[in-house]
């Protein structure tokens, strides 16, 4: 993302910034920056009905620049589109004040963002990261097992499932070649889908992971395809293919693969590898029943209150999903926590909810702390009903949000839930 212009007051945080998204990842940053009640200005196409003197109506599509006060955001990571809905907030010769409009933010088109409550520390950090021009790692990963393949694009901030291939493989039987045949068919389908996704002119590293030998076989399959065909791009892809072992073919196993030493050695140190290591370290502490590790909103806040998350190893892990809450109060609560930890000299790591490590954090409530000294029994005390519902609501929402990888807000979906008790 490029920062074209900004005039944000250092002290109050008020002001606006003009940004230019250049890559699909930038729309993810925009999704995290833009909040309900902010003012967003971008170009738009509006259907305008104009009545001419003779009374006949004509429909025109007019290009104009609209400023809206945001009410809702809809991020589609697969299509890399960000739709921002709101009501028109500035006089415009074509559109009435207060009418509804949805802006589709596009790449290579400027947009201006003015934040209602000012730019808080978290927003400024997000902005800094967004405009960071350092080369970012991107890689394609296929995590698979016999009959199942998940093709994903892994970037600095997101793990996007692009395609899932499921195929029924008959078991091996004596005297029948059905299993082999279906396996080849499965490889062919996976390979075709993969080619459609990859941009062979610009080959990025490709990671194949599976339990047992499936990934190795798939690599041989690709080699065979490259050798027989005339596709030069495919041959150039071959040296960039890494094969790794994973515990299963499901998406959550991708995490372990990405942070394994074999993979990080080849794909160099990346943000998601570091994030994964952090979360793993945290889980290890919890398992050892080390009282320095706590998770959950109340526990983390209590720990920070006691000054335990400060200089000398205090770390606050927080998922950026919490900052995307519809309610301003919720966002303020978490920004306050972040600021406090920073003041105490502790480290703050905002994890992307679109990486597996961020999702693991979300299933713990979205926030966790590693304290500088062990604290006993932070989870003692009354469990308030209200708090539980809030926590549950958060957890369920977070779980569902990540369940389909969509950032759809303002829509409450009913998760089917049958309790046999």
């Amino acid at each position: 993302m490029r920062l074209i212009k900004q005039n944000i007051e250092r002290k109050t945080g008020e002001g606006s910034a003009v940004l230019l998204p250049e890559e699909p990842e930038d729309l993810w940053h925009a999704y995290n920056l833009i909040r309900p009640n902010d003012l967003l200005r971008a170009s738009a196409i509006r259907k305008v009905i104009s009545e001419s003197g003779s009374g006949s109506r004509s429909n025109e599509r007019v290009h104009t620049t609209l400023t809206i006060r945001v009410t809702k955001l809809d991020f589609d990571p697969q299509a890399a589109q960000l739709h921002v809905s709101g009501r028109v907030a500035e006089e415009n010769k074509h559109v009435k004040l207060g009418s509804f409009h949805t802006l589709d933010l596009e790449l290579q088109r400027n947009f201006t963002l003015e934040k209602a409550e000012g730019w808080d520390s978290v927003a400024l950090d997000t902005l800094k990261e967004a405009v960071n021009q350092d080369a970012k790692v991107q890689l394609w990963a296929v995590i698979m097992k016999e009959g199942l393949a998940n093709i994903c694009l892994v970037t600095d901030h997101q793990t996007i499932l692009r395609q899932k291939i499921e195929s029924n493989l008959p078991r091996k039987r004596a005297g029948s070649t059905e299993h082999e045949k279906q396996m080849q068919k499965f490889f062919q389908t996976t390979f075709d889908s993969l080619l459609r996704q990859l941009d062979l002119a610009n080959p990025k590293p490709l990671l194949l992971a599976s339990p047992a030998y499936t990934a190795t076989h798939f690599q041989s399959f690709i080699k065979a395809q490259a050798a027989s065909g005339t596709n030069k791009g495919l041959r150039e892809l071959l040296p960039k293919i890494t094969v790794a072992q994973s515990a299963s073919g499901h998406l959550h196993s991708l995490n372990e693969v990405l942070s394994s030493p074999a993979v990080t050695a080849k794909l160099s140190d990346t943000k998601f590898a570091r994030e994964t290591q952090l979360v793993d370290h945290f889980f290890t502490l919890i398992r050892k029943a080390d009282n320095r590790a706590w998770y959950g909103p109340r526990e983390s806040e209590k720990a920070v209150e006691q000054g335990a998350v400060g200089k000398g190893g205090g770390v606050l892990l927080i998922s950026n999903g919490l900052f995307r809450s519809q309610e301003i109060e919720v966002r303020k609560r978490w920004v306050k926590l972040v600021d406090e930890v920073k003041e105490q000299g502790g480290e703050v790591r905002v994890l992307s909810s679109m990486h597996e490590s961020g999702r693991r954090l979300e299933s713990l409530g979205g926030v966790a702390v590693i304290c500088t000294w062990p604290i006993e029994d932070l989870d003692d005390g009354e469990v308030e009903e209200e708090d539980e519902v809030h926590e549950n609501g958060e957890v369920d929402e977070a779980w569902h949000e990540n369940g389909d990888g969509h950032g759809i807000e303002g829509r409450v979906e009913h998760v089917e839930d049958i309790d046999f008790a």
Partner: protein
Amino acid sequence: MGRLLLGVGAVSQRDIDKYQKQASEMGKASFALAWVMDTSAEERERGITFDFAQHHFSTPKSDFTILDAPGHRDFVPNMIGGASMADMAVLVVDTNQLDSGMKGQTREHILLAKAVGLKKVVVAVNKLDASTPPWSQQLFETVQTDIKKLLATSGFADEDIKFIPCSGLSGTNVINAPKPSSPAAWIPKSHFTLLQALERSIPAPTKPTTTAAQELLKQPLRMQIIDVFRGSITNPLSVAGRIASGTVQIGDIVTIQPSGEKAAIKALDVSDEPREYAVAGQICTLHLSDIEAQHLRSGDVVCSSQHPVRVVKSCTVLIEVLEALLPQPVDVHFGRLHVPGRISQLVETVDGEGEQMKRRPRVLKAGQRARVRVGFEEGVPMVVGERVVLRSAGVTVAYGRVE
């Protein structure tokens, strides 16, 4: 297992000789007997089993089906699928390599056998002829003590376990007891042959005359599919599995969950022989018609159309914890069905009677018993009381039953 099959005549000596020849050509001469079960080219080449294999044989006392499970770590999901179809476990232990076996999957397999509900265990203490001195009774008893301890900690009762000294390669004490003149003469004095032990280990619910078995027959049909394939030219779509409850006969209309599609039973086989009907406890092959292959997957459940199995996206499970657990993603295994899921909530820890000990614990420690909520991305067919195994990162972390 190959020796067992040879002994009962399920496999001919000629076949064994053929495998022997092929194996020698590949430099794996001693694997000839293993090739009865490991039938795929790759299994033979690599010398390991990928997926469980089935083989039937009969004795005058009973019909048996052997499900030979893979031992390798990466294939545990397949082992769980096979084990969940079984009525008893046969643990084959290499006397001379007990330590390396213990470090390997032996422990995990014993746990998983318990997790899927197996109670009866026959331990074949194998390769005793290769011990020094051969057929050492002392060595056998040391092994027996070690394994007994291991089985006890996993929850197997002493009276359900039988130890059988034997040698698969030479055939001693597998079908026939050793002669009084051999160094293994001590065996028949206090131990059965492997075959006799199997016949005596059949658990009660599988004996057709008991009330438990009768009850099972009256319940609605439920069979988890372990394989979807092309049965023959006349049977383009067939499924195989073990009937957990109920009965099925030719002409029945059944429902497949989670797709909800209906199918008709055109024909059915039990132990590779065509039959008119099949009952709970039998492993059978159903030849279907009026349904498209895309609606069928391994792990789906064939059920009665009047009482189809529910499909749900989350459930509460009462588990025994094996490794420390937090709300986290897990691999969930219901028999052959292997789906990704998440432990969404640690509800409570409970004691032996199921009474609450601590509400909403932060973390579950190994050895505890607890209730957790597990969620899935897609609907899963599920029955109350069903057994479930939770794994993560290649390790079994918990097992239990759906509540």
